């Protein structure tokens, strides 16, 4: 009886893995539709639970107490983080979790290599190659994600960092990595060389994210998400475990799709995001903006703004990251409710890269209970601006910059924008005249139809609410 059970066990584990992989696929599919998304997430979580339980039944797993302790610690940290995180900090959270996934994959590969070295036999060629690939992807995901986290959190400057000989240094490091790898493949395993290639790949992750910043952050987060999947897959090759390979490949594919969507929304290719320094081009136009002093800016107060909004027939609200940072989404909804009471038609226009990760703004407005039908994608809303009385821009900048349409020299030229300048009037709520995240001057602010309403988003919108009530 007992021997029959142990004989069946490996097969049972593989079958459970197959079930878990299927649940992941069904879960991801359902995550793609609003009606079923929550169930999809639950289904994927059940798949994960099954996979972990099946793995614990593996005959080679004996160290139960420590492993369960690790699972408990990890679960507590994860649950608390998921509870506490602000919705505005979602990109950082995802960045951080990506990094942890990458770190786990690297540790698996390093641990397995150490075990193989300890056996004192020659390590098979395919094992060496998969370990090397795994540490490369895992380490880049780890340090790249942590740097992205630090940039989003404001721990380091969010703008792109460029320095002389950037590409040659990267190429040199890559050659060093390949040389070290070739040495490990061709000769005996060597702990020192192995640690050196680990160090190089960690450095590559930092150098990969360092020159990317500003408006390109959603692309980086998507790409690192894809990497974290590929890292898990690579660890699967190291251990020859199909469950890891499949789940990793699914995540890798989803990350690449989102990366493509983000690039399309900014009219940039992946290559230009990764290698073309956004900052370099910005500096070139920075010189020209010095002459902007003689341009006229129309500034209005909250009372005047409230009158424009209250007596309009249609208002389109364009929220940007500035609104999110100010935590003004709830006040904005209050304003929208008030306007609707007065018979004004209110819509929200959401740019695909509004916020700092794909779909970020939708989440923030959902948090504030903005009804789903009021949210409009860029393609839906752009033809409507001509019929709109007032476009209210709150803390958005680059995504409404007409230079993307007209100025071929602008670094954001060609990026699809929300065409608020076509509305009858535009009110822009902004702290001051500083340039946007991409570091580009915005000519929208100097147009005749544009009124600037200076101040913090939350305060100004709150003033608008009380002024509108008095109309």
């Amino acid at each position, binding site marked *: 009886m007992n021997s029959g059970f142990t004989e069946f066990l490996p097969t049972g584990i593989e079958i459970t893995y197959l079930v878990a*992989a299927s649940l*992941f*696929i069904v879960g*991801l599919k359902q*995550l793609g*539709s609003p009606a079923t*998304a*929550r169930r999809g*997430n639950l289904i*994927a*979580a059940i798949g*994960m639970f099954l996979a972990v339980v099946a*793995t*614990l039944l*593996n005959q*080679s797993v*004996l*160290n139960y107490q420590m*492993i369960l302790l*690790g699972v408990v610690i*990890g*679960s507590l940290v994860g*649950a608390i*983080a*998921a509870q506490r995180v602000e919705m505005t900090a*979602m990109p950082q959270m995802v960045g951080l*979790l990506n990094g*942890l*996934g990458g770190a*786990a994959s690297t540790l*698996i590969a390093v*641990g*397995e290599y150490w075990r193989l070295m300890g056996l004192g036999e020659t390590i*098979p060629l395919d094992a060496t190659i998969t370990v090397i690939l795994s540490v490369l992807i895992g380490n880049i995901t780890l340090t790249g994600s942590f740097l992205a986290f630090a940039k989003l959190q404001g721990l380091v400057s969010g703008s792109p960092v460029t320095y002389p000989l950037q590409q040659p240094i990267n190429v040199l490091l890559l050659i060093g990595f390949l040389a070290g790898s070739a040495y490990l493949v061709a000769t005996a395993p060597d702990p020192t060389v192995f640690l050196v290639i680990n160090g190089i790949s960690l450095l590559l992750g930092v150098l990969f994210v360092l020159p990317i910043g500003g408006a390109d952050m959603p692309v980086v987060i998507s790409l690192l*998400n894809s990497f974290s999947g590929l*890292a*898990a*897959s690579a660890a699967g*090759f190291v251990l*020859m*475990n*199909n*469950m*890891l390979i499949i*789940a*990793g*490949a*699914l*995540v890798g594919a*989803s990350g690449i*799709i989102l990366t493509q969507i983000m690039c399309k929304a900014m009219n940039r290719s992946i290559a230009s995001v990764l290698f073309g320094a956004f900052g370099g081009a910005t500096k070139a136009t920075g010189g020209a903006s010095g002459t902007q002093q003689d341009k006229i800016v129309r500034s209005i107060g909250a009372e005047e703004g409230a009158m424009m909004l209250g007596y309009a027939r249609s208002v389109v609200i364009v929220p940007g990251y500035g609104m999110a940072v100010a935590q003004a989404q709830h006040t904005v909804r209050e304003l929208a409710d008030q306007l609707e009471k007065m018979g004004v038609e209110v819509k929200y226009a*959401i740019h695909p890269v509004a916020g700092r*990760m*794909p779909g970020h703004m939708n*989440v923030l407005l*959902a*948090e504030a*209970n903005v*009804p*789903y039908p009021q949210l409009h994608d860029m393609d839906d809303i752009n033809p409507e601006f001509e019929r709109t009385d007032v476009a209210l821009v709150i803390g958005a900048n680059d995504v409404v910059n007409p230079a993307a349409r007209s100025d071929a020299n602008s670094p954001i030229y060609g990026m699809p924008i929300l065409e608020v300048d076509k509305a009858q009037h535009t009110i822009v709520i902004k702290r001051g005249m500083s340039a946007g995240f991409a570091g580009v001057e915005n000519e929208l602010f100097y147009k005749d139809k544009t009124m600037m309403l200076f101040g913090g988003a939350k305060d100004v919108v709150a003033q608008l609410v009380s002024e509108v009530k008095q109309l």
Partner: protein
Amino acid sequence: MAAGLLTGLVVFVLASFVGFEVINKVPPTLHTPLMSGANAISGIAVIGAVLIAGAQEWNVTVILGLIAVVLATVNVVGGFLVTDRMLQMFKKKEVKA
């Protein structure tokens, strides 16, 4: 090339195609939850970590494996819970609308 590696490669390529097909055409509203959900799935590394941390005696591999167990579990649990928290907000609003 070892047979195992080849099989792994076949599985990887086919799973990638499945991933592309399944995730294509997702509305922008769901991009963030999809990403954090996928992120949680990438925490599948936890089972690899359990496998290498499973040996009875203490050595470098077991220690690295246990650290990996903790990190990957944070990724899994944090990822699924935060995704659910986000989707809950969408749900609430749907009922209202």
